[in-house]
C-alpha cells in the first residue's frame, strides 16, 4: 500500500508542500490558508480537505450560506436555459466552495464520463448530471456509475434511444467498457455486441430515465464467458466486479492527483487492490493518495500543468479578489478560451490534459487573461485590482520586492532572486501580470 507521508529533514512540511496540496486537491490556497496549514501540519491540512470543511473567515463562506447561494445561481441558470450561466454557476462553486476537493472530483468525473451539451442540449439535464457527480464524488464507484449511466445525459449522449432489440447500437456499450469502467483491452468485440443487447430498452424521456420493455432484447447473452438473460443492471454489476474496473479507477485517481512520471504501475496496482477490498470506495482512494509519501515526494512537486480552471480560479484566489469577485460568466468564457469549455468536452475521451493544456492559443490566452484580470476588466463595474493593498495586508509592507516575494510564495517553482532582478522597475500590476504567466507558474 502507499506509504504515508511523514515530514523529514529532506522532505519537510514547508510552504512548497502546502501550496502543492491545495493546488492539486483544491484551487490554490490563499495566503492565510498557507500560514494556517504550515502551522497545523500535514494531517490536519489533508483532513480539512478530505472532510470538505475549509472555513476561513477571510474568503470562504459558511457551508450552509454557500450552498443556498450556489443553489439560487444554479436554479436561475436552469430556468434561463442558458448553458453559459450553468458554466458560471460551476465556476462560482470552484471559487467559493468550502469543499474545493469536491469540485475537483466533480471535474474529474466530468472528464471521466465526458458528456457534451453539444448533443444533450438541455441545461437542466446537464446540471442534474453534474449534481450526481458532486453528490457521489467520494462514494463507492457503483453508486456513481449506476446513477450516471441510468441518467438522460449519458443516455442521450451515447445514443441509447437508437439501441433497440432489432438494431442494437454499440455506442453506450463500448464507452461503458472502454471509458467508464474497464479500459481498452479488457473485453472483446463480442462482449461489446452482447452488452449492447443487454442495454436495449434503456432510454430517456422528458429528461428522465425510462425503461421500454418492447425495446429490450431478453435473449441469452454471453459476456466475459458468463451466459444468462442479462439486462442493463446486470451488465453494470459485471463491470463493477471485473478486476479491470478497480485498476481503471486507481489509474483515474492517480491521473488526477499526480504529475508526470511519478507513480509506477506497482503503486497503481496496490491502490487498485485496496479499492477492490473496499467496494471501490473512491473517498478512501483519494484520501490514501493525498496522505501518501509519494504525493508529497519531491518528484511530485511542480510537475503538473495547471488546467484552465486551476489557472483562472487560482489567480483570483492568490490575488484574493473575492469582494467583489470577478464575473463568473466571464471566467467561464476564459475557461473555454484556455481549452476547457465546461459541459462541452471535445469528445468521449474528455480533455486530454497535461501538456495538452499548453497550446499556442492557451499560452497567449493566459497572458491576455492576466492582463484583463489585473486591469479589472473581469469586474463589473470595472475595477483595477489593489495588489499593493493585498500584499501590504499580508506582509506588512508592499515594496517591489515584497510583491515579488508574495508571488514567489504562491508560485514556489519560481526563482525569487532572478525575478527580483528581471522585474525591477515594474509597477505592482505589471509584476503580477508577469508572474501569473511565467512558464514556471503554469506548473504546480
Amino acid at each position: 500500500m502507499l506509504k504515508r507521508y511523514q515530514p523529514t529533514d529532506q522532505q519537510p512540511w514547508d510552504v512548497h508542500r502546502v501550496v502543492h496540496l491545495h493546488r492539486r486537491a483544491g484551487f490554490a490556497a490563499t495566503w492565510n490558508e498557507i500560514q494556517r496549514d504550515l502551522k497545523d501540519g500535514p494531517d490536519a491540512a489533508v483532513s480539512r480537505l478530505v472532510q470538505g470543511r475549509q472555513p476561513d473567515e477571510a474568503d470562504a463562506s459558511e457551508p450552509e450560506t454557500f450552498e443556498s447561494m450556489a443553489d439560487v445561481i444554479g436554479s436561475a441558470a436552469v430556468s434561463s436555459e442558458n448553458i453559459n450561466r450553468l458554466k458560471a454557476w460551476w465556476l462560482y462553486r470552484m471559487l467559493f466552495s468550502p469543499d474545493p476537493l469536491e469540485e475537483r472530483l466533480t471535474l474529474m468525473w466530468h472528464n471521466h464520463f465526458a458528456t457534451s451539451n453539444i448533443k444533450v442540449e438541455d441545461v437542466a439535464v446537464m446540471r442534474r448530471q453534474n449534481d450526481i457527480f458532486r453528490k457521489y464524488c467520494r462514494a463507492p464507484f457503483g453508486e456513481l456509475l449506476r446513477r450516471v449511466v441510468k441518467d438522460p445525459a449519458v443516455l442521450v449522449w451515447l445514443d441509447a434511444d437508437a439501441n433497440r432489440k432489432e438494431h442494437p447500437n454499440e455506442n453506450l456499450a463500448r464507452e461503458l467498457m472502454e471509458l467508464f469502467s474497464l479500459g481498452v483491452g479488457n473485453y472483446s468485440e463480442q462482449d461489446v455486441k452482447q452488452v449492447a443487447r443487454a442495454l436495449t430498452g434503456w432510454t430517456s424521456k422528458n429528461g428522465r430515465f425510462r425503461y421500454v420493455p418492447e425495446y429490450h432484447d431478453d435473449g441469452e447473452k454471453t459476456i466475459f464467458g458468463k451466459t444468462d438473460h442479462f439486462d442493463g443492471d446486470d451488465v453494470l454489476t459485471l463491470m463493477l466486479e471485473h478486476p479491470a474496473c478497480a485498476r481503471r479507477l486507481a489509474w483515474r485517481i492517480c491521473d488526477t492527483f499526480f504529475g508526470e512520471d511519478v507513480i509506477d504501475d506497482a503503486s497503481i496496482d496496490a491502490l487498485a487492490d485496496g479499492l477492490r477490498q473496499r467496494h471501490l470506495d473512491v473517498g478512501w482512494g483519494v484520501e490514501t493518495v493525498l496522505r501518501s509519501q509519494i504525493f508529497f515526494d519531491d518528484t511530485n512537486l511542480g510537475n503538473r500543468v495547471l488546467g484552465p480552471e486551476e489557472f483562472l480560479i487560482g489567480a483570483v484566489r492568490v490575488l484574493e479578489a473575492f469582494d467583489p469577485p470577478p464575473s463568473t460568466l466571464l471566467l467561464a468564457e476564459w475557461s473555454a478560451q484556455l481549452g476547457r469549455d465546461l459541459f462541452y468536452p471535445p469528445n468521449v475521451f474528455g480533455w486530454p490534459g497535461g501538456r495538452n493544456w499548453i497550446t499556442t492559443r492557451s499560452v497567449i490566452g493566459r497572458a491576455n487573461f492576466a492582463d484583463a484580470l489585473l486591469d479589472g476588466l473581469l469586474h463589473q463595474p470595472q475595477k483595477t485590482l489593489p495588489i499593493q493593498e493585498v500584499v501590504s495586508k499580508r506582509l506588512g509592507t508592499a515594496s517591489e520586492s515584497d510583491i515579488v516575494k508574495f508571488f514567489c510564495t504562491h508560485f514556489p517553482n519560481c526563482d525569487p532572486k532572478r525575478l527580483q532582478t528581471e522585474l525591477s522597475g515594474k509597477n505592482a500590476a505589471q509584476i503580477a501580470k508577469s508572474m501569473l504567466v511565467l512558464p514556471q507558474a503554469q506548473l504546480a
Partner: protein
Amino acid sequence: MLNRRHFLKQSTLLALAPTVPSFLAQTANSAESRADDRVLVVIQLDGGNDGVNTVVPYSDQGYEKNRSELRLANDRLIKLNDDIALHPSLEDMHKLWESDRLAIVNGVGYPNPNRSHDVSMAIWQTCSFDRTEHNGYGWLGRALDSSSAPKTSSPSAVLVGDGKPPVALRSRRSIAANVDRIDELLLPGDVRRTEQHAAAAATEDLSAFVERSTLDAYNTADQLSKLGKPDQAATRSPRSELERRLQLVSQLIKADFQTRVFYTVQSGYDTHSVQLPRHERLLRDLSRSLFAFFEDLRAAKLDERVVVLCFSEFGRRVKENASIGTDHGTAGPVLLAGPSVAPGLHGEMPSLLDLENDDLKHTVDFRQVYASVLQQWLGLTDERIRSGGHQPLDLLRRA
C-alpha cells in the same frame, strides 16, 4: 517570407536552439513540404445554394422553360464553354478559372434526397442517412482520427467563426476548436516575456516543454501582430464577414498554425423569394473573398498548400416559384479552388428537362468528392466513405 520555416531560417531563433520546441527546430531544418502541411478550407454555403444560377447550363432548353423571372441574361453570363457559364457576379471566380485554379464538380448530390435544411446538412456532414447518427461524428472528424500525424500545439480542425464546431468536425478523438478574432492570439502590451535562459537543458522535461511552448506561442503572436499591421499589403480591410474570416485563416496559415482543416460558414442562401439581388450579393462576396484569399496566400508562396471546398446542403428547385424565388431542391455544384486542384469541369451536368419530382438527378455522389479530397489531398481516410465503395474523382493535380 512569412511562413514559419522561412521565418525560422532567417531569424535568430535557431541561435536559441536549446529553447526552441523540438518540432519547430525540425521544420526549420527541413524546408521541404510534407503531406501533413496541406490544408483544407471548407466553406459551407448555408441555406441551399441555387446551383442552376451559379454554374449555369445555359444551352439546356430546360433553363428557359423553368426560369423566366430568374433566368440570367445570356449576354451577361461568363461563358466557360458552349454549354456552361458562371453567374455574372463571379468575375473573381472566373479569374481563378482562367488561371487553372478552379475545379467545378457538377450534379453533386445523393440518393433519395432530403429537402429539410437540417437533415440534408447532417447527411452532408456525417455521411449518414440514419437520423440517430446525425448528432454523432462527422466525415472530417473521423478522417482526422485516422491520421497518425504527430501531435502539435494546434487543434487539428478549427471552426472560424462563432459557436461550436459543426458536426462535420466532430470525432471520437481529435480536437476541434473555434477561433473568431485574431485578438485572441495577440499578446497584451503589459505582459512581456522574461529573458529565456538559453542555457536551459535541451531535454524535453516538463518545465523545458512549457518554456519552449511559451516561446513558440509568443513568437507566433509576434508574427501575427506583424502580419496584422495595416501597412502590410497582406491585410486590406475586409469587405465582408466571409472575407474577414478567410483573412484570419490566411494569417493562421502564414503563422504556421499546424491545423489541417479550417471550416467556415457563409449564410443566406435560402432564397425563397426575390432571389436575384440577394443571390448576386452572396456569390459576389464568395467570389471576391476567395480570390483575395488566394492572392494573399500566393504573395506568401503558401497557396499551393491550400485547397478550398465550397458546398451547400442542397441545390434549389429547377422551376422558380411564384415569389420570384426558388424552393428546396437536390443536386448542385461543388467548387474546389486553389493552384493544386485539377482545374476544369468534373462530373456530368444534370439535365434540366429530365427531372425527378421536379428536381435534378444527381450525377456525382458527394462522398466521391470527399473521398477525392481526403485521399488525394489530405492523405486521410474516412472508413465510412471507404467501406461505402465511393470511388474518388480526379479532383487534384497529381504530384
